[in-house]
């Protein structure tokens, strides 16, 4: 049975349509991430699930029950807020127990629940402190503790890590993943950070302008994006988009890339990845999507890809690997090569492109063709 079902949900503020026909269904124990740029409606969707914002039309079911018109308190959900929203006048203990107290749980049970989550999150020594006496990471833990104490059907996380510094964010990310694996809870998690989305999610819903662009596993979203937006949003550095003209015919398509001042580059399209949509596009301009890691240094490799060469623009070593900017087509592309590449700007670099993982888009409609 689905833990959460969202059916044809619409939401408007006056004449602005902020959520358009959202349909999502997640299984019990699943970790769903809503990701998208700011203003894409992901936080509104989360507030709608929580019952903090009334929806215009549609249906929300939790554990099979229609909760569309129930108050937040009646929905059996808990939420971790971006600002943590800890009650400033209460101790950590009071904060964690408040939800249980409101639900008239006997005192002894409340104490036991507080102790359980305090042990789980290693905050037992903080129980008698006020939120103002805690560090950012500790507040984050308490906010999660408050949610965990109630053991609801669904947990909602609203950008919970965005107020932490970079190092702590990575630590807490791992911790949340561990908690999810250990407790098997159902989580809906909002973030604008695509790395958080990739690392944590069982499934990701990429949103833009109030619409779910694609709903799928991290692997599907990353390697099989349905449109230019999803392809460009996920991945860092972002996917390179290169203008290319489709040539040839079924079984031997190729893409011709014209770079000013250089000879045209012709990249053969792998025959096993032909689609019917390509047939009507021969001779037309396409958008070729190549991720930085689809490029590799040609030296010492046995050619798994198509060879190409270009003059290096900028070299950015990151430690784990080296990012290289090179002109290709009308613009520049970023290639990710191994850390032992010692190429310098202005030099000519031999590369190969792995076309088996490349994607093709219609440049006008921005949808996937192959």
């Amino acid at each position, binding site marked *: 049975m689905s833990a959460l079902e969202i059916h044809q949900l619409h939401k408007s503020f006056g004449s602005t349509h902020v959520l358009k026909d959202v349909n999502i269904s997640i299984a019990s124990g699943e970790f769903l991430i809503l990701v998208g740029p700011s203003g894409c409606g992901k936080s509104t969707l989360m507030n709608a699930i*929580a019952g*903090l914002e009334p929806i215009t039309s549609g249906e929300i079911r939790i554990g099979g029950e229609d909760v569309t018109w129930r*108050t*937040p*308190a009646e929905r059996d*959900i*808990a*939420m971790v*807020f*971006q*600002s943590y*929203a800890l*009650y*400033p*006048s209460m101790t950590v203990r009071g904060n964690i127990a*408040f*939800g249980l107290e*409101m*639900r008239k749980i006997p005192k002894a049970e409340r104490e036991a629940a507080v102790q359980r989550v305090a042990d789980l999150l290693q905050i037992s020594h903080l129980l008698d402190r006020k939120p*103002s006496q805690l560090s950012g990471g500790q507040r984050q833990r308490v906010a999660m503790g*408050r949610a965990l104490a*109630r053991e609801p059907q669904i947990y909602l996380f609203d950008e919970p890590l965005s107020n932490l510094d970079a190092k702590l964010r990575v630590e807490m990310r791992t911790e949340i993943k561990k908690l999810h694996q250990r407790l098997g809870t159902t989580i809906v998690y909002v973030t604008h950070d695509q790395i958080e989305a990739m690392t944590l999610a069982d499934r990701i819903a990429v949103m833009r302008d109030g619409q779910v662009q694609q709903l799928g596993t991290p692997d599907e979203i990353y390697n099989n994006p349905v449109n230019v937006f999803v392809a460009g949003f996920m991945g860092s550095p972002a996917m390179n988009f290169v203008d290319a003209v489709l040539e040839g015919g079924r079984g031997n398509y190729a893409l011709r890339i014209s770079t000013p001042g250089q000879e045209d580059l012709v990249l053969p399209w792998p025959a096993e990845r032909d689609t019917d949509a390509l047939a009507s596009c021969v001779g037309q301009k396409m958008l070729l999507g190549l991720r930085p890691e689809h490029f590799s240094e040609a030296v010492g490799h046995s050619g798994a890809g198509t060879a190409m060469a270009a003059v290096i623009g900028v070299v950015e070593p990151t430690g784990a690997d080296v990012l290289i900017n090179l002109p290709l087509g009308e613009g520049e592309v970023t290639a990710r090569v191994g850390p032992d590449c010692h190429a310098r700007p202005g030099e000519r670099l031999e590369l190969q492109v792995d076309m088996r993982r490349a994607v093709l888009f219609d440049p006008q409609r921005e949808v996937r063709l192959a």
Partner: protein
Amino acid sequence: MSDAMSRGQVIRRQTPAAKALRGLLYAVLIVAAVAYLMPLVVMLLTSIKPLAEITPGNLLALPRSPTVEPWAKAWGEACTGMRCEGVGGYFWNSFAIVIPAVIISTLVGALNGYALTKWRFKGSNLVFAMMLFGCFIPFQVVLLPMAQTLGWLGLASSRSGLVLVHVVFGIAFTTLFFRNFYVGIPDELVNAAKLDGAGFFRIFWRILLPVSAPIIVVSVIWQFTQIWNDFLFGVAFSGHDTQPVTVALNNLVNTSTGAKEYNVDMAAAMIAALPTLVVYVLAGKYFVRGLTAGSVKG
């Protein structure tokens, strides 16, 4: 921000011109302080002098034989109009009016501010704008309709009637205070409590009110001084036995039988002014802190 900056110290070379300017600044401040304090000093000195020392003497001369006689007379014997019982009874009248009026108007203002910021409804901004309008209505305009209303309610010339008038007038201000304070409190706090299962009053009582101390102090001081110092409503809507001290003071000073007893007048004025002074001295720093509380991130 560096330590020096946060303490308001600006590092600057002390040139002679800068020192001279600094001296001038202090001189101006001292003159202003003296000018403001002088009336209080004159009142205090006059109130402990026997009448014989006042008529020929100079206002600032120290008393040769200080006495509390004028204070005792002002409190218990001085004539206010036809009666000669001092201002003591009216002093307690004022408290009996001020205390309930302050408590009720502060509580209602807090609830209004909470509802207007955390439970927004269609037209809530319009409601707030109309309440704000109440801050600018001159007292004189409502005198007659209010007298009529109090008559209908059977509260004419009673302390309860005065409490009602002050509550009605005070709510505009207290609502403004609390609304502006609660606007700065994150909505997520209220949302978290809603998800935890708390309702309208529970959230107010358990979450909002415990963090409202600074603005409660502001509201209490403001309302206390406003209501305590009120003369117009006091004189218009009170009976003989329910007059506040401000009205009694006026009657005392204007009573024209016998010689003018300046020392008693001054003592009575001091008595009437003391409670507001005490409130400011005790809670003044919280007042300033509360007024600026919204500007500092907690």
